């Protein structure tokens, strides 16, 4: 029982501090508060309100919608992926040495990793809801709740990519560059604006594909594409598992097992 209490206490402590770290990350907060409205407002202002047609593969139907609205949804997906991707890359990258010190002091690595995911999930949900609210200031998506869900899945997919890159890259610039390049490629290859048909096999394997399909469906139809809703979290799970493996490799204890005790003190009550 004491062990269970200790486990929950450690997990709670790690989650609390991971959340605090995000809350105190002023640069990320500024990006969220100002960059999302700025990006979406500029799109609303500059992009013509002409009809645009694209194939929504989630429903199998070709839709003709307001090009301005289409661009705003695409922009919302793009902003949340970049912000959460950067956020998770930076937090993983910058705290690697500190996390290793905690792990060597006896903190279970799984708790540290789960804490990062819990904090990211909450941050991604808040950011997705905020981006939906900003879109709603300009026009009314058909299903705003589903749009939030679509943006959330986009955010967690790139959060996973950020965690993976932060776990093995050794340079901040490399991480920033890679996240931008991945996001650009991803958007160009499957986005309804750049590729309205998106008909080639394999397009569904791109990380933004599922979230974009869900967000488009939410903006313009009453359909709920359940399968596509799972693609973003699947991307996150795959990236997180790889990131976890990299984290374990970089924080492993090289002392011979059984001969040298861990540097821990007394047992936690």
């Amino acid at each position, binding site marked *: 029982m004491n062990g269970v209490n*200790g486990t929950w*206490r*450690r997990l709670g*402590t*790690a989650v609390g*501090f991971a959340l*605090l*770290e995000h809350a*105190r*990350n002023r640069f990320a907060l500024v990006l969220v508060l100002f960059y999302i409205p700025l990006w979406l407002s500029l799109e609303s202002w500059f992009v013509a309100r002409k009809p645009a047609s694209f194939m929504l593969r989630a429903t199998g139907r070709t839709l003709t919608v307001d090009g301005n609205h289409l661009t705003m949804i695409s922009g919302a997906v793009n902003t949340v992926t970049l912000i959460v991707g950067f956020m998770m890359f930076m937090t993983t990258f*910058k*705290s690697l*040495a*500190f996390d*290793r*010190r*905690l792990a*060597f*002091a*006896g*903190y279970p690595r799984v708790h540290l990793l789960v804490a990062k995911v819990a904090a990211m999930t909450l941050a991604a949900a808040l950011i997705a809801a905020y981006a939906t609210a900003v879109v709603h200031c300009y026009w009314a998506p058909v299903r705003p709740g589903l749009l939030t869900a679509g943006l959330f899945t986009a955010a967690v997919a790139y959060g996973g990519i950020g965690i993976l890159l932060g776990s093995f890259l050794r340079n901040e610039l490399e991480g920033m560059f890679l996240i931008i390049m991945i996001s650009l490629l991803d958007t160009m290859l499957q986005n309804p604006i750049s590729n309205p048909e998106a008909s080639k096999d394999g397009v569904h394997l791109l990380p933004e594909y599922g979230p974009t399909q869900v967000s488009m469906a939410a903006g313009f139809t009453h359909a709920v594409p359940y399968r596509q809703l799972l693609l973003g979290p699947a991307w996150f799970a795959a990236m997180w598992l790889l990131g976890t493996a990299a984290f374990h490799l970089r924080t492993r*204890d*090289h*002392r*011979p097992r059984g*001969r*040298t*005790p*861990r*540097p*821990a*003190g*007394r*047992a*936690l*009550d």
Partner: protein
Amino acid sequence: MPVTPYALRVRDVRKAYGSRQVLRGVSLDLRPGTLAGMVGENGAGKTTLLRILCGQTAAGSGEVDIRGSLGYCPQETVLNDFLTVDQHVRYFRAAYGLRSTGRAEELIEELHFAEYRHTRVDDLSGGTRQKLNLTLALMHDPSVLLLDEPYQGFDWETYLRFWSLAARLRDSGRCVLVVSHLAWDAERLDVLHRLREGVAEPWEPGGRTAAPADGDGR
């Protein structure tokens, strides 16, 4: 014949980075209640040796045996810029599985940085960051302490307090190994080793006076 107790035993530890052989067979025995020093010029492999002793780096070959719990103070301060001093202490209390933060409180008072308890690390001076770095390594009262240049950034008063603290830890039976590229503190140590050409040897600087190792000056 009785077996000599030891707190830290290192046997023929070797380490190479590519073709560069950094450690060529380091052996060392330190008893409980010892305040030991390890000096060597820049790049001699001191930090590599400490990282091997604490398990962060794999040795090419050799054996390391540490009896009891271990505390390691890295040369670079390893802290989280977004958290305060108190939050670090709470985090490491959970990591070490301690019932209280009593020992950390004592160290904070002793090293004179209690006024910064609620200050975030990125607002702390280099010296105060180093005090916290050291506190996190000592707060679980480990049996063996590996301290890598632990007084970098300390002012003179704090530097003296550090040595007084190290002496008290030694007197209470702890084994303390302080690594430095200088031999200024030889008089404060029970035993001094010099890491040279990948091997550690007992060393007594000329006449036990302050002297830099291999011409390194402060």
